[in-house]
């Protein structure tokens, strides 16, 4: 039976295969079977994403090294996910909101946040080193999916204020099973909140593979039930990520509500430095993904067009190196955290009980200082 819903349903369908503009060798591929046309980003943007990915990866490797030196308590690497983190972040404006998880350190660096502030949570000196209001960037979130509902609310708030800011919310594949993911999608759809839910499907939630997480043919299909437009994209193709972000942003900014992106990518390192990935995946699997390196892919395209030469590559790596060594130097000093700051932000006005405890700790510290 023909129903009026057919056209609407059709519009909600994501492309049957992930959108890809560059193949792993960096050659342009014909778009076929996509539900919309995607425009190849211009060379300038691809140079920019390449540069930022080089810097991001160097930062990520440095952060992992810092865990070995005991400078970071723990670090969840996003090596291999550069196109997603850099591409999505680069596409939004400073006035747009970003809602990162613990894994989005590289996205935060791309956002322009001082790397040392990006690492506060993981270093252990503060739960959030940067100012979320000033940076329009929420604190990194560790309880899974809970930030998505916040993103929906923030996006709706912006809309009510008559501004055209969108919210970009990151989430992993495993976290799509959480109830809050579903509530967030539903709220965003119902309130037509301009939020982009960016799922980095990196194939594992710690050790659990996607096949044990969901029976959906693709996570992008989860948009349909909520009436949300969705798309799947090759998350290791920087050009495709930018192109799909363009469509999603246009959709959001023109008042059509939320958009769901599933980016197919891979987590090359373990879940965190504390995890042992050999217990749940094979070396062959990882090696296969090394051949889909997002940086190499766009670098090949840029070189073939004469948009990039060895000198620029060398200079950019040198720049990344010096940013890493600067970070290393700054992380080498032991951060000083004032124990009295414990009491600073529990309530706007401290309770008498808190003041008593403050007195107790103050006295302990003075006694220690005298001893």
């Amino acid at each position, binding site marked *: 039976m023909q129903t009026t819903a057919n056209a609407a349903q059709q519009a909600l369908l994501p492309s049957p295969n992930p959108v890809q503009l560059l193949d792993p060798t960096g050659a342009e591929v014909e778009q076929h079977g996509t539900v919309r046309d995607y425009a190849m980003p211009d060379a300038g943007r691809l140079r920019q994403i390449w540069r930022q990915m080089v810097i991001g990866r160097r930062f990520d490797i440095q952060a992992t090294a810092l865990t070995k030196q005991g400078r970071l*308590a*723990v670090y969840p690497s996003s090596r291999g996910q550069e196109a997603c983190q850099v591409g999505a972040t680069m596409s939004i404006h400073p006035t747009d909101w970003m809602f990162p998880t*613990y894994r989005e350190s590289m996205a935060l660096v791309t956002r322009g946040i001082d790397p040392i502030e990006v690492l*506060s*949570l*993981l270093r*252990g*000196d*503060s*739960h959030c080193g940067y100012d979320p209001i000033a940076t329009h960037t929420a604190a990194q979130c*560790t*309880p*899974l999916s809970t930030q998505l509902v916040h993103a929906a609310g923030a996006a709706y708030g912006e809309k009510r204020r008559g501004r055209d800011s969108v919210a970009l919310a990151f989430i992993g594949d*495993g*976290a799509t*099973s*959480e*109830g*809050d993911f579903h509530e967030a999608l539903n709220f965003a759809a119902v309130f037509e909140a301009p939020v982009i839910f960016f799922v980095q499907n990196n194939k594992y*939630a*710690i*050790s*659990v593979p996607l096949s*044990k*997480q*969901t029976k959906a043919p693709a996570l992008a299909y989860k948009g349909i039930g909520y009436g949300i437009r969705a798309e799947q994209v090759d998350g290791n193709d920087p050009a495709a990520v930018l192109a799909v972000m363009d469509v999603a942003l246009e959709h959001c900014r023109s008042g059509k509500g939320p958009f769901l992106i599933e980016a197919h990518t891979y987590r090359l390192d373990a879940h965190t430095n504390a*995890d*042992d990935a050999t*217990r*749940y995946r094979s070396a062959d699997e990882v090696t296969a993904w090394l051949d889909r390196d997002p940086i190499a892919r766009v670098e090949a395209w840029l070189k073939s067009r004469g948009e990039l030469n060895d000198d620029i590559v060398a200079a950019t790596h040198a720049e990344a190196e010096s940013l890493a060594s600067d970070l290393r130097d700054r992380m080498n000093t032991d*951060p000083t*955290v004032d*124990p009295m*700051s*414990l*009491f600073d932000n*529990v309530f706007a006005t401290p*309770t008498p*009980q*808190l003041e*008593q*405890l403050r*007195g*107790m*700790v*103050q*006295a*302990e510290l*003075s*006694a220690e200082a*005298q001893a």
Partner: protein
Amino acid sequence: MTVTMSGALNAALRDSLEADDDVIVFGEDVGTLGGVFRITDGLAETFGEERCFDTPLAEAGIVGFAIGMCLTGFRPVVEMQFDAFAYPAFEQITSHVAKMRNRTSGRVGLPMVIRVPYAGGIGGVEHHCDSSEGYYAHTAGLKVVTPSDAADAYSLLREAIDDPDPVIFMEPKALYWSKQDVELPSQRPGFGEAVIRRTGSDVTLVTYGPSVPMALQAAEAAASEGWDVEVVDLRTIVPFDDETVVESVRRTGRCVVVSEAQGFAGVAGEVAARVSERCFHSLQAPVLRVSGLETPYPAPMLEKTYLPGVERVLDAIARLQWDDVPDLSHEPAAAVSRG
């Protein structure tokens, strides 16, 4: 043999799976990985995916699913990955798990165990160090258990799995790697029986779970200042062993309750109230609490300041002299004369 608490928990799960085909283990990463703390290490391998399996990442889903499986006769043992990540399941736990027997006039019992690695002292980041036992203990219908050594961990977990009611099994993360010389299977006192970990005649420290080793240290330190301190380990918060606690405090006449959770409206307050009610005539001084600060659990670098430690316990003991007007504000150590 030398056993860690995590090894003892793993052995208890193994032996329960072996003993009863209806016991099943599930949760996030409990299969191939063996849990992020490796408590379920090797269970999927030994018993197969039917008995120990990974679920989608959804705490409410895990607990709700376990409720349904209980209806068909299973005895699920589920893992919440970390204390603060059990909160999405809180609605299922309080609204259904705790109340099901009552809601169904006794027709449906839920013989499930919800394992929660909890508390701090491991340098964990935000949301990984909560002491959430108070929430569960405050909810009628839940048993709340927390071992402090390997032998108890084994014995209490076996009993929890055999129990006809839902048990919230709180595992002190900081003690997972603590070692003990013990032969497994160990059989210790059952639910609702506290044990005296150290005898003494001047003061009773009542404590449980992660704070037990610290309280024992404090008792040692107090000995050198002339205080003979008794340490009572509750082991189960619900049911609560009034008898052991009351008997001890009546003997010593003084009581300090030590817990890592924040003091306000918590388990320590409950203990203090019960002691006051039952030991009023024996008490030489008010019952004091030493607990975590009333601030959100801080970033790792401040956890030493946050957590109650030996010094704070000693200060509390010093305030128990009661020879003058008692100072019940948290008076600084320096201002209190000891001895």
